[in-house]
């Protein structure tokens, strides 16, 4: 009787591209991995995540890849005939057409900078991504608006899920501890506003999350860190 050989690396190990992370036909390769015969290999540098039979690789680095429905923070870099161009930080910029920007009536030949001027920061949502990575952004939904005041910082786009936390738990933690308003864009930009000292602590907490995202016990360490800062 032929027995199938199966083996798998431990959850949360770091894998390099090409490294064999599991052997056996019973495993299912998910994002960041690929199958070659009996073996499942890592398709990039990252942390192995095992969920039953499904093996995923969580990337630790990499540029933001725009996805439908992502909430993003961007800067207006150009005013077009019928819309605006928004910089998302990455190889692709996005376009916000007139009708996605505002529900109010915009007369012909109106000065579009009255609505959004060059250099304005906005929170928007990606509503279309073509195969050639042409991106459409909309601001016509609750929670999407121009950003006033505060500061925008760049973070590692791959760490955004950790910064937000499960159902927003991590970002709520920081908000409550510092009293800052914060919005996290999937494209690796974070807007925050609050007392200067509080903003400083919030940024420090975010940098700490970026550095230690792959280590266990992050929530406890960030809680302790923020408590230490508020004393």
């Amino acid at each position: 009787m032929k027995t199938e050989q199966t083996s798998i690396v431990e959850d949360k190990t770091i894998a390099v591209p090409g490294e064999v992370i599991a052997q056996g036909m019973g495993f299912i390769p998910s994002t960041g991995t690929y199958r070659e015969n009996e073996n499942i290999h890592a398709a990039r540098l990252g942390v192995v995540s095992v969920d039953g039979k499904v093996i995923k690789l969580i990337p630790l680095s990499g540029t933001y890849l725009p996805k439908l429905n992502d909430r993003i923070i961007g800067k207006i870099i150009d005013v077009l005939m019928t819309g605006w161009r928004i910089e998302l930080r990455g190889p692709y910029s996005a376009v916000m057409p007139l009708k996605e920007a505002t529900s109010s009536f915009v007369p012909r030949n109106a000065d579009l900078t009255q609505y959004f001027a060059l250099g304005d920061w906005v929170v928007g949502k990606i509503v279309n991504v073509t195969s050639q990575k042409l991106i459409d952004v909309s601001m016509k939904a609750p929670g999407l608006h121009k950003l006033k005041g505060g500061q925008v910082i760049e973070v590692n786009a791959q760490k955004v899920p950790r910064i937000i936390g499960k159902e927003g738990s991590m970002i709520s933690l920081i908000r409550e501890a510092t009293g800052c308003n914060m919005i996290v864009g999937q494209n690796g930009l974070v807007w925050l506003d609050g007392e200067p000292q509080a903003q400083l602590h919030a940024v420090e907490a975010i940098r700490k999350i970026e550095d230690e995202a792959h280590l266990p016990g992050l929530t406890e360490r960030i809680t302790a860190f923020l408590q230490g800062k508020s004393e």
Partner: protein
Amino acid sequence: MAYEKRFDERGFDELRPIEAKVGVVKNASGSALFKIGKTVAIAAVYGPRELHPKFLQNPQTGILRINYNMMPFSGHGERVRPGGSRRSKEINMVIQNALLPVINLKEYPNAVVDVYVELPQTDAGTRCAAIVAAAMALADAGVMMKDLVSAVAVGKVEDKIVVDLIYEEDSYEHGSDVPIAILPNSGKVSLLQMDGDITPEDLQLMIAKAKIACQKIYDVQKAALKERFKKTQGD
């Protein structure tokens, strides 16, 4: 005349001391240093990012652009003229060809991944060291890669096949220089060049020896990449 002892007294299959470190250029998306004997290569990866000039853009996939450069003071005292040359253009191309088989840039049409490799000190095996450093830097940058790439310069001096050439062996009259790049997990060859005269049997042997040597280099690449993310709690 037979080559009895190597100029630096190594074993014929012995590599020079190797060292690797990932994340050495903070501004870059990914970076790595690779040192083999006295040859030092520093690779920095930027991208995927917008590609200029526009005529180079490929709507079906992102492209890889390599910029290999030996620094003016890198050699043995002779002045290495700064800037590109026919030789560096060729090396850019072979490094690109050595790395392309493992890289997947289909998700980034019209974009570019720029890889810069600078060598502050050289003692033969430079294009191989550049490939080793570039592979680590690309992984560090989060580029989708099926495998890493390892490389070493094998050669023939008089009657002996030697692994990991030094300058004296590389430039030896009637010698042969055969840089080889291997994909560690599949054993496939992605770079194979030859300077000099060897027999087909020699070549087979050289490739076999290169595969063994590249496994050792691969172990060092793996360790350097994993080391990047090791951090003890409380640091």
